[in-house]
């Protein structure tokens, strides 16, 4: 009997125990919300009826670029919106795209440097995503290192100082999730969960980001494009005239802002050295910015000009968030730069010409002029955009 028992233990009981243990372990480890293992064709019973989505935009805004390979659909945007706000893509499920691009900050995080899941700070401040669809042509991020929103969406997931995940891990979580496979089916027509991949996730996020378009209802839009001329007071008009160099140069000086922050979206998406750092050699910039991407020394210290729409919502300012207030920003520009060779030449032409200066120098802006420009910047505030129900966090 003892011998039998010994034999049972070695030949039957241990394997049974091992199997039971493995089963318990698997049950314990499995996502309790996901009792289903993906199988081929597991999504075929879900309807796929893509409906094209025309992104609403103000009449005076340019047409919105949209790649043929990723046309917006209603379900694609819904999926993208959910992925954008869901921390599921980060390694520890604590960080989403919205962590650094929160709606309260006009899709920034209002931090000098964004903090990743491991508590490590990045080296740049997060950029606003407002009207980001328009700038993709010129490159995304502060240095333009990627050309499309689809490419951009892939980056933070695997960045070790951001979400610090791997895409294979993130994709496994999406495939096993109780709701995402159906959402991917509706957005992209996949037939089983195993078809979900990082490119689909990136496409969906890009679709959502493309709808982050101004409402066109800011005070400035109404004043300038709807001719509601009574909306601005004297100071706001002065600020606008200086911003756009329309002051006639006698009563009001040129603030030269629009050369970098021009057009309807108030950014041309181009790259400038805006006079932040004094260096003796262009190779001395601590953060070379655009130059790191192009390899062109003359691009060192240049960064993409951000939109000024909703600028009030998105402090701190500059690529490294060095200025906390618009007052500090205007103080900086009023110093007329550092004379570095690749500085934008308009930096040195802010303000009235100093009488008798030879070579000609400019005086920057005085206290009233700075305040007037700031007051004008406040008219770019677009609360209708911030409150747009279509772009809110769906988990709240």
């Amino acid at each position, binding site marked *: 009997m003892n011998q039998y028992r010994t034999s049972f233990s070695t030949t039957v009981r241990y394997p049974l125990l091992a199997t039971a243990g493995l089963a318990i372990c698997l049950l314990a480890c499995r996502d309790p919300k996901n009792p289903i293992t993906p199988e081929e064709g597991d999504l075929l019973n879900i309807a796929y009826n893509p409906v094209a989505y025309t992104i609403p935009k103000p*009449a*005076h*805004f*340019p*047409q*919105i*670029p*949209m790649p043929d390979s990723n046309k917006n659909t209603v379900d694609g945007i819904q999926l993208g919106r959910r992925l954008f706000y869901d921390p599921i893509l980060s390694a520890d499920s604590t960080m989403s795209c919205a962590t650094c691009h929160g709606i309260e900050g006009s899709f920034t995080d209002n931090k000098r440097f964004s903090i990743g899941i491991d508590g490590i700070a990045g080296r740049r401040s997060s950029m606003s995503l407002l009207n980001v669809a*328009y700038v993709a*042509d010129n490159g995304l991020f502060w240095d333009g290192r990627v050309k499309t929103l689809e490419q951009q969406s892939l980056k933070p997931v695997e960045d070790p100082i951001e979400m610090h995940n791997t895409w294979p891990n993130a994709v496994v979580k999406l495939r096993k999730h109780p709701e995402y496979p159906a959402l991917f089916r509706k957005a992209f027509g996949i037939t089983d969960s195993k078809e979900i991949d990082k490119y689909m996730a990136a496409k969906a996020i890009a679709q959502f980001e493309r709808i982050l378009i101004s409402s066109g209802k800011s005070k400035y839009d109404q004043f*300038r494009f709807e001719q509601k001329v009574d909306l601005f007071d004297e100071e706001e008009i002065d600020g606008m005239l200086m911003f*756009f*160099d*329309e002051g006639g*140069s006698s009563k009001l000086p*040129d603030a*030269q802002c*629009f*050369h970098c922050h*021009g*057009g*309807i*979206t108030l950014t*041309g*998406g*181009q790259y400038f050295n805006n006079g932040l750092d004094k260096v003796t050699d*262009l190779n001395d910039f601590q953060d070379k910015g655009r130059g790191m991407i192009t390899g*062109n*020394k*003359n691009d060192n210290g240049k960064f993409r000009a951000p939109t000024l729409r909703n600028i009030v919502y998105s402090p701190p300012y500059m690529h490294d968030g060095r200025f906390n207030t618009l007052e500090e920003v205007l103080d900086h520009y009023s110093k007329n730069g550092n*004379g570095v*060779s*690749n500085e*934008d*030449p*308009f930096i*040195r*032409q802010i303000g009235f*010409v100093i009488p008798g200066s*030879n*070579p*000609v120098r400019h005086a920057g802006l005085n206290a009233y002029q700075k305040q007037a420009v700031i007051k004008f910047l406040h008219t770019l505030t677009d609360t209708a955009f911030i409150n747009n129900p279509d772009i809110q966090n769906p988990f709240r």
Partner: protein
Amino acid sequence: MIHKTTVFLALLTLALSFCGCESNDPDWVSFNITFKAVYDGQPLEADKNYTYGNRTINFSRFSAYLSGISVYDGNESQSISEIEYIDFMAGGPNGVKKNFNAPPGNYKGLQIGFGVAPNLNNRKPADFPATHPLKENEYWIGWKSYIFTKVEGNYDTDGDGALESPITQHTGANEVYYEAKLLHDFTVEPNGDITVEFDLKKLFTFDGVLLDLSLVDNRVTSHTPSNLALGKKMIGNLNKAGILK
């Protein structure tokens, strides 16, 4: 029936108006034009100093809209592009290469409109598709015009070697637009290459004399829409600064 014909003709007219004069004729062939900028014959490079008379100058930007680019056979011109935006320094010293289609054959030159043709300049960025050269980046709301050309850089006004004086020459407005021909025999053949080269030293030279850049009004035209005279003078000189190779 009349109604249908009218609608058809209206639609056809509309379609043709959007197509411009360029053709998708299958007999046309693809060829390249490289748009290149030089200074006194040397490749134009950012962060490089050049001699301007007895002074020093450098350039950080040179861009231009070129409208109605046409191949010219000595008698007639055939449009190959309604408008192009050329950021000459974006492509480095080798210039910017663009692809066009044209009927194959021998030509006497290119016809080019310098700036944005008035029929386009009177429209707004919102009128154009997202990929169009006139989408918005160079639109100046204050002028209600596109900025036709930009020359930016720095100049050593006092001769001490420091480039302390910014150059920001921007032109725009319908009044400064004009068309001219760059004459030079060339052949359009499949995958052929021609070059349009602008020499900035010639751009700043009038009757053999360099524009006096010690005068601030000659360096800065960016926010003086009333200063059409200098704008006309500068953009008018593009024709003389350009050669076809």
